[in-house]
């Protein structure tokens, strides 16, 4: 639980929320802005510190871990990429291996870049501002994967892209997961994206989980009218009927 102070008084967010993500599984947190999905995501690497409750990653209580060490072993991708604008692609991607002090950072960089579809070295020397939005997000994903983390947190990773680039990157993400089994928590406001990429979906609303289930079940039997409306808005009920 995380207590926030608002002009209207203190508000408890994520009260009673419980979420278990299995090894290699991808869980999507879906909801409108303000639903608490990003806050929940940020609890996993202690960018947000809960006021009460427990969070464990790989069976270890995150509160006992050194926060800097913890973050170095959890991949993180954010909406605008968050690439260091003054660093080349290579330096961005090798950041976490370098922070950890892994000796063969160069090989890790090449491996991660290949995973996201950059097979030739021509991008390494470029600066983020010389890349397209889609390329930047690929580099951000490569950066998150470079140190071979077992857990990956993604905060609207494809949210700022146009529809076509977005579909491309979703494909790429599915391909990455096939090659590199990594436990993912994916925040998105797009239920369509969630059902495409995730093994399970947690629909969140006002700081609580409305329904947690596999995509098929969410679409087939929404637990609440809110979830049903969300399914309808994403056009998923129709897709299902035609299938």
């Amino acid at each position, binding site marked *: 639980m995380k207590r926030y102070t608002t002009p209207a008084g203190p508000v408890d967010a994520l009260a009673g929320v419980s979420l278990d993500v299995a090894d290699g599984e991808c869980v999507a947190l879906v909801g409108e802005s303000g639903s608490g999905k990003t806050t929940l995501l940020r609890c996993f690497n202690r960018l947000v510190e809960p006021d009460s409750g427990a969070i464990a990653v790989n069976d270890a209580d995150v509160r006992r871990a050194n926060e800097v060490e913890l973050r*170095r072993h959890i991949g993180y991708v954010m909406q605008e990429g968050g690439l260091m604008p003054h660093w080349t692609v290579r330096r961005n991607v090798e950041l976490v291996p370098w922070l950890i002090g892994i000796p063969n950072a160069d090989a890790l960089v090449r491996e991660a870049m290949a995973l996201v579809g950059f097979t030739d070295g021509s991008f390494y020397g470029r600066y983020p501002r010389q890349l397209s939005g889609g390329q930047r997000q690929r580099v951000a994903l490569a950066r998150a994967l470079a140190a071979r983390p077992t857990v990956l947190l993604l905060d609207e990773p494809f949210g700022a892209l146009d529809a076509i680039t977005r579909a491309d990157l979703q494909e790429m993400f599915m391909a990455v997961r096939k090659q590199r089994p990594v436990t993912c928590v994916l925040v998105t406001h797009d239920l369509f994206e969630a059902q495409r990429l995730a093994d399970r979906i947690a629909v969140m609303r006002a700081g609580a989980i409305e329904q947690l289930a596999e995509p098929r079940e969410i679409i087939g039997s929404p637990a609440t009218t809110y979830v049903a409306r969300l399914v309808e808005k994403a056009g998923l009920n129709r897709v299902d009927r035609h299938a």
Partner: protein
Amino acid sequence: MKLLIVLVLAMALAQDAPRARPIVVASKPFGESYILCEMFAQLLEARGFRVDRRPGLGATEIAFAALRNGSIDVYPEYTGTGLLAILADTTRRTPAQAFTHVASEFRRQFGVTWLPPLGFENTYAISVRRETATQYSLRTLTDLARVAPSLRAGFTADFIGRHDGLPGLARAYGLGFREVRPLLAAVKYQALASGGVDVIDGYSTDGLIARYDLVVLADDRGFFPPYQAAALVSAAVARDDPRAVAALAELSGRIDGATMRALNRKLEVDGVSVDMVARGALDSLGLGSTSRATADAQRAPAGRMSAWDSFVHAMVNDRAALARRTWRHLVLSAVSLVAAALVAIPFALVLERRRRLAEPLVRVTGLLQTIPGIALLAFMIPLLGIGIVPALVALFVYSLYPIVRNTYSGVRDADPVAVNAAHALGMTPAQVLRLVRLPLAAPTIMAGVRTAAVINVGTATLAAFIGAGGLGEPIVTGLALSDTGLILSGAVPAAVLALLVDVALAGCERAVRPKGL
């Protein structure tokens, strides 16, 4: 603590010659004071002493503070100023009583010695144009009080503010002017002659009173105290150098009012250099050292140089001095700027980590910026004396704010997405600062340094008021002697220097901008 280190560094830098100490001869920034200072200096040199000249020190407060703490050894002062401005004593006294009183009080309170008076008085001379005097039949200040409500006065700021100046005078005579304007000493005679004002505060020995054919109104109620000129000598010289004191005392009683007026006229009307006026004066008193003096004096220009000629003279014929001053100016600005950057940037980085303290503390450095230059210099004399050290400290203080402000804002506002990502990927706070915030803020920080540098080059002209040299020197002298050309020969190079420094630092700003931005 850091400030202390900088002070120590600055002092170390400023230690020039080894201390087989020359006698430091100084003056206040007006013509007569320059002439007397130069006469003291040449006389001491003729008697075999090594002399260091510091003409044109700020004003009474600065010159006296410097004498008191031993930064200078002798300067010409007036008994009335000693009584009123320094002892704040308004008791009415005869000239002889006034001298005896300041001499004993200064020795008792400050350990400072008044040598016997030089032989003339230079009191305030409230002056009007001849036609004004005729029109209203003015002879005395009592006459003036009668018509003052229809007259405009232009007085030096000093005179307007001091209680022994306008406020006291107004009370003594019931004076109330239609308007009182503060005027620089350099322009008040021209302002009166051109009809811009009707009354000014001159000095009775000013060369310009005769030049403009002005009428000096008699102080018929004896408001102004006697202003006898005399050499004021530091405790150190009075104690350790009786021969120097004896040499200076050779001038006592030798310069009467007519002589001083003639010397002032040579300097202020005829445009003869201070050096030659002093040489000629000593020569005719039989105190000169060389026969060269007379020959030089005869070759002196017959009339005053035009502003353009004196500008060209200072820029071309005197280019060695120009180069020396420019170099000094650059050193003053650069040393203080580098010291300020070394303190301000780390300070601002600490503030970025203590956000709650940041804004108030940044504002405090901003407040330092609002202290007027001369005031800051005057505050520092009791601690640091005159010359390079206090000038460096003052410029250092003025450079802090732009650098602190820009560094703090630049680091605080560095690309928030990148900063967020840096945290999320496991950089330590120190790494976020060093690897992300600082490089992203570098252009903003450099812009602050650039602002500070340009302010610094401008402010460094004030350093001349405390004897630190630089391009302010000809400005101070030019203001004192109403020599526009001389003023420009300091102001123009200073402006050019500011521009060049700005261009050079714009280059640095581009160089520190990270490539990807």
